[in-house]
């Protein structure tokens, strides 16, 4: 027993500049503090911002990531448990705050790695992507994958999967109809916006035209003013 105390006293704890939860190391770490069970709301601060995370060292970010991950696990467990017990999970926005912090943290780590790779190799070191045509003849972003041993021309399975490309009359017909659909959708949206502007002009003849122009930059306002749709129920002066 005495030896144990000695060991415990001599453990050098790392100095943390980030607040941490009490270490329990048991299954109850998946659950919130008992004081927060069944309450209406749990007050918390905001999420970490990118500019704050940029000030932190790599090891601090590493520690913070696991703190956030544990918190997220805890919150998701609590949410699941509350759903099981048919009670309201207090302050569900906590999950979003933690996830937002984790996204920001990852962005900062990527930023640092990118800077290193650009300096050392001239490439950003991210997973390569390129814009190609997919099987339907439409443009899409293809994210490349890493393959050990076999290069592309020897990888028969990959080539077989990638080999299908629509072509000929089928593709031409499809693309014609697809483009027509997109065109009609855009045209309808334009007409809808125009009609809405007419409705606004009818209801608020003295409104701020600059604000209207800002909100609907694609609508010809002079044309809308002259439209039959924008005439109000009054005798024009």
């Amino acid at each position, binding site marked *: 027993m005495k030896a144990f105390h000695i060991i415990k006293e001599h453990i050098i704890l790392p100095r943390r500049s980030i607040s941490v939860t009490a270490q329990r190391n048991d299954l109850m770490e998946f659950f919130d503090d008992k004081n927060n069970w069944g309450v209406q709301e749990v007050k918390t601060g905001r999420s970490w911002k990118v500019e704050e995370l940029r000030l932190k*060292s790599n090891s601090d970010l590493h520690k913070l990531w696991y703190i956030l991950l544990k918190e997220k696990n805890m919150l998701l467990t609590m949410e699941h448990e509350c759903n099981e017990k048919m009670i309201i999970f207090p302050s569900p926005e906590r999950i979003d705050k933690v996830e937002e912090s984790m996204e920001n943290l990852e962005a900062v780590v990527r930023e640092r790695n990118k800077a290193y790779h650009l300096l050392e190799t001239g490439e950003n070191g991210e997973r390569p992507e390129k814009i190609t045509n997919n099987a339907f003849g439409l443009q899409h972003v293809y994210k490349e994958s890493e393959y050990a041993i076999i290069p592309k021309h020897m990888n028969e399975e990959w080539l077989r999967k990638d080999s299908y490309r629509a072509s000929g009359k089928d593709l031409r017909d499809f693309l014609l109809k697809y483009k027509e659909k997109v065109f009609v959708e855009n045209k309808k949206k334009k007409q809808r916006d125009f009609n809405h502007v007419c409705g606004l002009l009818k209801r608020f003849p003295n*409104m701020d035209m600059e604000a209207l122009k800002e909100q609907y930059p694609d609508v010809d306002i002079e044309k809308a003013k002259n439209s039959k749709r924008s005439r109000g129920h009054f005798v024009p002066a």
Partner: protein
Amino acid sequence: MRLTQILSVIGKYSKDYSNLPDRYIKRAMEQVYWKNPTGVQYRPDTEIKRKTYRFTTNRPWTAQFRQQNLPGRRTKKVFVEPIKDWSYFRGDRVEVLVGRDKGKQGFVKQIIQERNWVIVEGLNCHYRVVGRDQNYPGMVIKSEAPLLVTNQVALVDPSDFKSTPIEWRFTEDGQKVRVSSRTGRIIPIPASAEETVDYKSKKTYNEQPKDTLADDVIAITFSPKLETFEMSIMESMGIKEDRVPPKSYWY
């Protein structure tokens, strides 16, 4: 990108007071009826979801809002006058120009920017009878009705306490301020504009048990070095890696 689509309809000033992250507001109000399955699709990430919502005094993240916008419910379109600069903030002294409280002055309690509304404390009220049945006469609840900022309220000039039209101008320091068109006096934005459900002002915020202290947040522990994140973590943990990865191909 999609986050801004749904949130672009909710005004900044109407969500500031709640102090909720945008992500949560989106998650709480979104109604997705169908989503394209993952895999090769000719139109990936296609969703069928509610596009227009009816905004009322109920805030988008509440259950009452969901009740008013139940899936499949369609309501008449509301025309909202476009406004260039929002000029009404929480705590502003305003004069009511219409209704039974015409001419009275009060303070802005709530902003509902997506309808151009403000709620003025204690003015333009109506009464509702709740819980009336055969044996019980019911309870009367008084609540404020919203007022349009375009023609139903006006800001009050602090020099003579009379209503005035305003315009936004720049001071010599480059600060954007509201100026009374009648007297040319600056109408300052009240301190309560900064207020949220969690704090009165940022300085008086009460730290919660899981918050990181402000001093720790601004402490700089990063020193730039020519290494990746992984390299620095491996070094601090004493992990040595001398294996050479075999050649791999990216395609």
